[in-house]
């Protein structure tokens, strides 16, 4: 047993820190730290900075332009980025589609799409959920019918994150309605600029435009945009989900958020003394701090266990439940810490370059919006109830 990083791992962490100190623009990290909504330019600029350093595709082998990092290096990198208030990398191309193409794509597909993911020529979004297929994803009905050299797609996708910025969408579509649920699904790459594609915003309860509905009406998609074999898409989708869930614990985000909470609670005043001296609030903080410390180690134990290769299965479900619970609790404490200043909702002050002046403590502006936005954590990526089903099946044999 040795809970310390090896000298090599510490050296790597120092490299990451040095890179972040030198290359992460202060204006960008300030926007992240203050909870502003990031615009397309913000996200794209961080994507480009990482790509220039060769540190964008942390899940890809070196031969495709990836970093070739092991799971511990990825963990260190993701944590350091979060602690430095770097924007998150947009995962759809780099972390989701990329690994699927590398594993199941043709040579031509890899040569065409992978470089475009790295250089930002394509902005991908994910077409999985539908109005009638949420947790029961395999119930999806978006239809693709082969017509010569094309597929013709009709149907609807929803919860499409940042689809308003995307020019490409990878979709699960039904190609064989007669087959059993999972068996008739294919994995298709669709150009969002094709005639018949329409994107409509969904405004979430925090007033944000993060997700969308995407409608397909007689959209013609070249047959070479099929990934893998027809009707085998479910296999690829499941493979992708294991990558969607890799940094699922969000340990670094929780650590950064807890630091913000701790700083604020030391300065805020309640009953004539700092909030962090309040017995009830300090107990709430201590509980989540201990949960977070425990989870950090649980996360590392999982990483060490899968370091020999392979993607985590049940373990990522455990981390997802623990991690999202902790992140939600921290944002909830931040909201509580603001007292009445959790109420003002000056939406313009949350925009990346919003001109409005917030009211109350400078930290107060985003916290309620973030709290409500973070309710999504236990819903997306397979709801926490679905994760419990997975664990029950895999770990308990129930």
């Amino acid at each position: 047993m040795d809970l310390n990083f090896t000298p090599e791992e510490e050296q790597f962490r120092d490299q990451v820190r040095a890179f972040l100190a030198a290359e992460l623009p202060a204006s960008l990290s300030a926007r992240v730290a203050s909870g502003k909504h990031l615009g397309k330019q913000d996200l794209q600029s961080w994507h480009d900075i990482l790509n220039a350093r060769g540190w964008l595709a942390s899940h890809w082998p070196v031969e495709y332009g990836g970093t070739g990092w092991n799971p511990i290096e990825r963990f260190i990198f993701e944590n350091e980025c979060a602690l430095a208030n770097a924007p998150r990398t947009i995962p759809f191309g780099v972390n989701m589609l990329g690994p699927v193409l590398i594993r199941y794509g043709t040579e031509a597909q890899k040569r065409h799409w992978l470089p475009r993911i790295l250089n930002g020529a394509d902005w991908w979004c994910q077409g999985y959920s539908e109005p009638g297929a949420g947790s029961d994803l395999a119930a999806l009905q978006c239809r693709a019918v082969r017509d010569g050299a094309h597929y013709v797609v009709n149907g609807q996708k929803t919860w499409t994150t940042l689809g308003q910025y995307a020019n490409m969408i990878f979709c699960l579509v039904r190609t064989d309605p007669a087959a059993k649920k999972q068996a008739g699904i294919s994995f298709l790459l669709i150009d969002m600029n094709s005639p018949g594609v329409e994107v409509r915003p969904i405004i979430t309860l925090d007033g944000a435009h993060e997700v969308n509905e995407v409608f397909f009406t007689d959209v013609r998609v070249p047959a070479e945009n099929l990934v893998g074999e027809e009707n085998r898409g479910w296999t690829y989708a499941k493979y992708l989900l294991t990558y969607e869930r890799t940094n699922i614990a969000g340990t670094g985000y929780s650590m950064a958020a807890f630091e913000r909470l701790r700083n604020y609670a030391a300065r805020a005043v309640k009953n004539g003394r700092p909030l962090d001296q309040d017995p009830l609030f300090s107990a709430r903080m201590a509980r989540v701090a201990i949960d977070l410390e425990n989870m950090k180690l649980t996360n590392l134990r999982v990483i060490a266990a899968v370091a020999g290769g392979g993607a985590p299965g049940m373990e990522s479900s455990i981390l997802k439940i623990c991690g999202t619970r902790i992140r939600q609790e921290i944002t909830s404490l931040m909201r509580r810490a603001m007292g009445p200043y959790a109420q003002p909702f000056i939406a313009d002050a949350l925009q990346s370059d919003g001109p409005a002046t917030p009211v109350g403590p400078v930290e107060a502006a985003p916290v309620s919006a973030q709290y409500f936005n973070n309710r999504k954590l236990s819903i997306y990526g397979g709801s926490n109830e679905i994760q419990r089903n997975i664990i029950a099946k895999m770990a308990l044999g129930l």
Partner: protein
Amino acid sequence: MNFELTEDRRMLADSLSRYLREQYTFDTRRQIAESAQGYSSTHWQALADLGIIGALFSEAHGGYGGKGFDLAVVFEELGRALVVEPFLQTVLAGRLLAAAGEAGSRAAQALAERVITGQDIVAFAHGEPQAPLDALHVCTRATRSGPHWILTGQKAVVWQAEAASALVISARTAGDPTDTEGLSLFLVPADAAGLSLRGYPLIDGGRGAELELDQVQLEADALIGPEGGAWPAIERALGAGIVALCAEALGAMDAARQMTLQYLQERRQFGQPLGAFQALQHRMVELLLEIEQARSAVIRAAAELDNDNAQVREQALSMAKYTIGQAGCLVAEEAIQLHGGIGMTWELPLSHYAKRLIMIDHQLGDADFHLQRYIALGRASAAG
């Protein structure tokens, strides 16, 4: 980073686990736990011969282990088999004796050697009936009388006190009840005049006792360790005890989880196994999550046990004891609930695991105590 046990520790765990599986079956355990003696001399000696006690002490103290992970490995197996032998007391008193021996007390050193070989059982008597929730509250007084020490006071719920040939007793030679300064340790023979015990069975098996010290007269060398300066040694011993208890709880939780899972798979109602009901599946998953988090906490505490940075060490210990307190009670209560009526019976081993898990939260500070301690330690470091 490495989460593998060393080969030596794996072998230690294997040999202990094999012994317990073969020799310390649940029926055996039940008889021992309910016996008048409250432990088994035969098994105690056999376990000592197997090297289990030696594993709990460093080479410098006459053992061959003594690190946090040695304690963790041994106590996890003890917890899994719900062993009632006086291991915790041996860790506490043995460490105090060994530390006093290092500080120059020959009597303590000689007794430490006998403890580590299993020849003697010694109990540490520290908590008091006036303030049993407070680890620092010591009112028992030791005063000088010529060449002698005179001890007067009371000690509460001293585990396995009746089995002990001698007791290590904390007493004040100076200061007020909650001061860290002014605490001293005395080695008191079990048959000392003026020392009386009221023994009783414990709800989770084994025995405890209330101690009454009425003008107990001791020789000068009964003071072991520095006069008035015993707290650092006591804190370190309690830390080892916390790692031991937390690891024991982990083993007991794991066993309770397995029993409950098996029951959910076997028991049928409404024409299907209980495990087919999602409401029960999700509760079972919750136990699994909490046990994994608890395991992480125990690993951290074991890793930090020998850290000389007191704040890091003590915070890790309090985090673990808090986490175990929460998780242990959850596992105990849920395991009973998921079993239904049968979980309420004395006959079912599970119910005894549940009792042990709950009672671990009553030893060496409960979850609330350690949550407050964790907060206070953080504040002290921020202020310093």
